[in-house]
């Protein structure tokens, strides 16, 4: 039985939002969405989590720590599929409603109220179709992946690989590398893949923001932009300029603001005992030469501008 609920100075109830990692522009937009929803609904939020997305133990500790603070609800972007299972169970045992955002978590679905995330698999599939179309269904492709065992980027890669295999039988994935997650390492690994398969690479898929930036820079550095068709995931100014200059074929962009916003909306519903859908897909968008102007007007945050 709870002693008291955490309340802020103005006696509003507190919801904890725990990102995969605080050190990212992307999660900062999620933060904005969450804050917006909280404002609209009359709650305060605590924004806390590991700074590194690869730091599982810190995220487990963050969950334990916010539980000790008696928050009324938790919105969690788990940075590991397995490691966060037990903490989520403990949250459930403590009777605190929990909404998972962005990446899936293992264990029973009953442990949390809802799961709101970009349909990563579908995003990867969209990237595959784009590359397939622009290369007319034939050619060699490389993938610049993120760190190992990150559910969302793994799902994108899987969606890409499966779709390419199913729908474009004449296309080959000649190389794919995991990275350390920094733009610099993504750049080096991509450059090495391009050098290794010299003059053979026609397409490139990068699975998230650092890998897209790194891959783009590698292409640019080797003078291969345009010749190698690149489809990235996530966006920022450099990549948007790349689209405008015809150096980047397309970017699959998510809507992090919407993810944060929905996460808090859903957890408040759960706190109030309303029924919520178990799975809430957040659609992603395709940014390319045709859509870029419109997206810059309507969704600048989604483009990282």
């Amino acid at each position, binding site marked *: 039985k709870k002693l008291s609920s955490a309340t802020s100075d103005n006696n509003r109830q507190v919801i904890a939002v725990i990102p995969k990692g605080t050190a990212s522009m992307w999660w900062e937009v999620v933060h904005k969405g969450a804050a917006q929803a909280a404002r609209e609904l009359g709650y305060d939020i605590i924004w*806390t989590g590991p700074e590194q997305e*690869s730091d*599982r133990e810190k995220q487990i500790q*963050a969950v334990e720590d916010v539980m000790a*603070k008696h928050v009324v609800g938790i919105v969690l972007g788990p940075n590991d599929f397995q490691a966060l299972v037990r903490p989520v169970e403990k949250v459930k045992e403590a009777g605190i409603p929990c909404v998972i955002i962005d990446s899936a978590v293992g264990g029973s679905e009953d442990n949390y109220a809802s799961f709101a995330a970009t349909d990563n698999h579908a995003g990867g599939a969209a990237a595959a179709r784009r590359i397939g179309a622009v290369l007319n269904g034939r050619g060699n492709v490389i993938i610049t992946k993120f760190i*190992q065992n990150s559910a969302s980027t793994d799902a994108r890669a899987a969606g890409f690989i499966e779709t390419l295999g199913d729908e474009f039988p004449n296309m080959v994935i000649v190389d794919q590398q995991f990275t350390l997650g920094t733009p610099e390492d993504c750049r080096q690994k991509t450059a090495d893949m391009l050098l290794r398969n010299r003059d053979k690479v026609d397409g490139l898929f990068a699975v998230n923001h650092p890998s897209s930036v790194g891959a783009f820079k590698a292409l640019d550095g080797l003078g291969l932009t345009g010749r190698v068709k690149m489809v990235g995931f996530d966006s920022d100014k450099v990549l948007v300029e790349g689209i405008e200059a015809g150096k980047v074929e397309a970017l699959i962009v998510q809507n992090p603001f919407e993810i944060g916003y929905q996460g808090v909306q859903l957890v408040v519903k759960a706190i109030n005992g309303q029924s919520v859908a178990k799975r809430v897909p957040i659609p992603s968008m395709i940014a390319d030469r045709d859509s870029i102007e419109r997206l810059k007007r309507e969704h600048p945050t989604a483009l990282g501008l």
Partner: protein
Amino acid sequence: MNKFAKQLLPFCSLIFIFSLWTFLVPNEFLTVTNLTNVFSRSSVNLIMAAGMTFVIITAGIDLSVGTMMGMCGMTGALAMLRFSGAGTDQISGGGSIELTTAAMTGGVLVSVLTGAFVGGINGALITRLKLAPFIVTLGAMSIFRGSSLLMNNGKPFAVSDFTLLDTGRVAGVPVSVILLVLVLAVTGFVLKYTRFGRYTYAIGSNVDTAFHAGVNVNRVLVSIYALTGALVGLAAMITTSRASSAQPTAGLALELDIIAAVIIGGCSPGGGRGSMVGTIIGTLLIGFLRNGLTLCGISTNWQLVAIGLIIILAVTADQIATRRAA
């Protein structure tokens, strides 16, 4: 008197931190759940720090403990799955497999032995080839990380039945706490009251003297690195149990936390000085500091700054106290 003062200081810091949080966030800090939580999450660090204390007293260092923990966890979990009769496909598929008690015990043993073995290799390289501990364990760090990622292609092993070292209890006391107390008591005794402990200090203080006095320096050092490895193996199993799975990247950068705790506790990186009590205090200091900062709503980023400052402050205070006493 002098010695007493030396241990008083980290102890006072601990008391200070404790009082500070009790005063600032009494409702959240001073609860059984929270304190238990801090202790149980510190247990992994404490066990590893116990071994590191020996290493640092010999003027050595072991940078590989973090990634070694990841590797031992993976090895132990794999053993559990194999001993429970899981096939290769089942294991790499990551599906959940029923684990037998025997398999789990076996897995823990395998993890501890793996740690002792690779730790022993570290020690052998350091002594036989006369390489600097820093560089040997730096190399080992990379090798262990690579190996644990290779074991299941970067994926973790799920061992959700293995709750023994997380929630398991004997006579109401968590098993992990029993193990922790046992480890600290034994290592503390060895360091303070046995020949082996004396030799540890002597090697760190002046390795030539120890050698001239007939101490089998190589054997002592290899034992110390193997002991540290074994303790890492044990800690790995606690982490695995807490996460219901063995993560190939578990223990990321943990070595720095451990080393910081040991040094805050009064071990000198130059060797020859330190104690187990100091290490315990140093580790708990970091644990409570992190916990309290989070409870106060201090962001992770400020926490990093605070912890860095505390590390420097702690050794500064220690240094000043030592100088005054001298």
